[in-house]
């Protein structure tokens, strides 16, 4: 998406009349950026600030507050591995290290081909299926180490 297209999309968002004041569109606008750009850059924030009449720094504040927003470049697929208590008790940490081993990255890093970003993540509410992993919007529960390569291949992993 180009910045111009993004600006158009934000304008459309404003026309939805979902909120009684402009500032409330900030999270939806940043979500749109999160989904369409590799990162919510300062240029993206400038567009949001102009369109929503929100001071620049308030846009950056919000973009940097929420864990799901990436202000640094992320991969095409963000793999989130829950290691919070329920998943930890059922092997979440092992899943994380196996994934990192397979992709040869550390938690928080992106593979050199820009395909995957692996994140150690907090509880995603899939505790009945611990350990749980999500890849963008897809979710995987009761994940076993041996099924990880198969999951990765679905997203174009060549390993």
């Amino acid at each position: 998406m180009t910045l111009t297209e993004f600006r158009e999309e934000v304008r459309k968002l404003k026309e939805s009349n979902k909120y009684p004041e402009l500032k409330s569109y900030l999270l939806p606008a940043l979500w749109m950026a999160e989904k369409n750009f590799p990162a919510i850059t300062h240029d993206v924030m400038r567009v949001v600030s102009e369109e929503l009449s929100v001071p620049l720094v308030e846009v950056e504040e919000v973009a940097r507050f929420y864990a799901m927003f990436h202000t640094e470049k992320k991969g095409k697929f963000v793999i989130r591995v829950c290691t919070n208590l329920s998943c930890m008790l059922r092997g979440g940490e092992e899943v994380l290290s196996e994934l990192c081993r397979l992709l040869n990255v550390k938690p928080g890093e992106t593979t050199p081909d820009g395909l995957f970003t692996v994140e150690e993540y907090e509880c995603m509410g899939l505790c009945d299926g611990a350990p749980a992993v999500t890849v963008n919007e897809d979710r995987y529960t009761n994940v076993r180490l041996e099924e990880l390569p198969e999951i990765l291949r679905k997203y174009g992993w060549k390993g």
Partner: protein
Amino acid sequence: MAGRVKMEKLLLRNVDKENSHTIDVYLKNGGYQSLRKALKEMSPEDVVEEVKLSGLRGRGGAGFPTGLKWEFAAADVKEPKFFVCNADEGEPCTFKDRVIFEKDPHALIEGMLIGAYATGCRYGYIYLRGEYPIGRKILERAIGEAYEKGFLGENILGTDFSFDLYVHSGAGAYICGEETALIESLEGKRGEPRIKPPFPVNAGYLWKPTVVNNVETLANIPLIIERGGKWYSGIGSPDCPGPKLYPVSGKVKRPGVYELPMGTPLSEIIYEHAGGIVQDRKLKAVFPGGASSSVLTADEIDVPMDFPSLAKAGTMLGSGAIMVLDETDCIVRAALRLIEFFRHESCGKCTPCREGTDWLVRLVRRIEEGEGSEEDLDVILSVSETMENSFCGLGMAAHNPVASSVRKFREEFLTHIELGRCPYRRG
């Protein structure tokens, strides 16, 4: 005790049905009849009275009487008013609300509609945690269906009542489960709690009267309207009645969400409903009300799972999420993981929470890594005491899992210190 009675499924009555998330299935099973009843046969005051009669207390964690909250909101004359559903289910090991809006979203929508009617709210938002994209799709589809059938929008069911409903996605911040932080986030800001008073019922979203109710709370509403508050108040514990969803996870044989009368004993939930401990090991510890509750030992699990009983036992019901550790699990490691979570989720507004969580992480990690000393345990308890003075509930409770673990499993902490390593470490 009422809790012992085998109960019919109420909140989960629809979830096992095929396509339970569609309006057709919901309607076929009597859906939106409560709304019809409320709108056609009851005044808003009647609805509030019925909910007050039911004794329903909020299922988000604080347990505030829902009817009372509605009464306050209804009494406020400022316009417009907003009805917000708190679906920011971020408490670790809690996944009960997800089951409702993914499997029975119309029950939630109907509950919101009835609440909005009772309180005079014109607009509604479901603040959904960002980690639930599937839930978002299901809810948006359900809202679309409800609009199509005329349950949402202008002049609902031919009455003067109009209500518009939207889904607002959070983006990964546990603190937004705190109602004022949720409102800030809805307003497009960092999710940081506000000073109370004023309370949201009088000055919430855009400083207008705003009702914030949890998903599970709202799912109870159609039932109360359908069968009456009096009926409802007879279920479970007398001073906090109703059915309750208990999500159980960790080292049990059958993790999942169990609907049981409020006040069902913890031991019954673990051993009867969740099938007991994996590989029939010994139960070691239970966090009975989510990550911010104080831990209970194996000797303490006969406690009824309701607000007052758990409070008396020195812990809390919170979200009702039960997290079970077995004899092979390290309590220090568990406490560390939980306090790491709170450090990650602290918004940073107030000193005790921002600095206290970090210090606790560093202290507990040092112990877990075998670098601790006995004085560290006293420091942990003292820092916990300071954290009691935090700005909001997050900080006030964040130290609970650590402090309670130190109190109840002091020996295990000391073993770490003496051995200079974690006795449970594999490899």
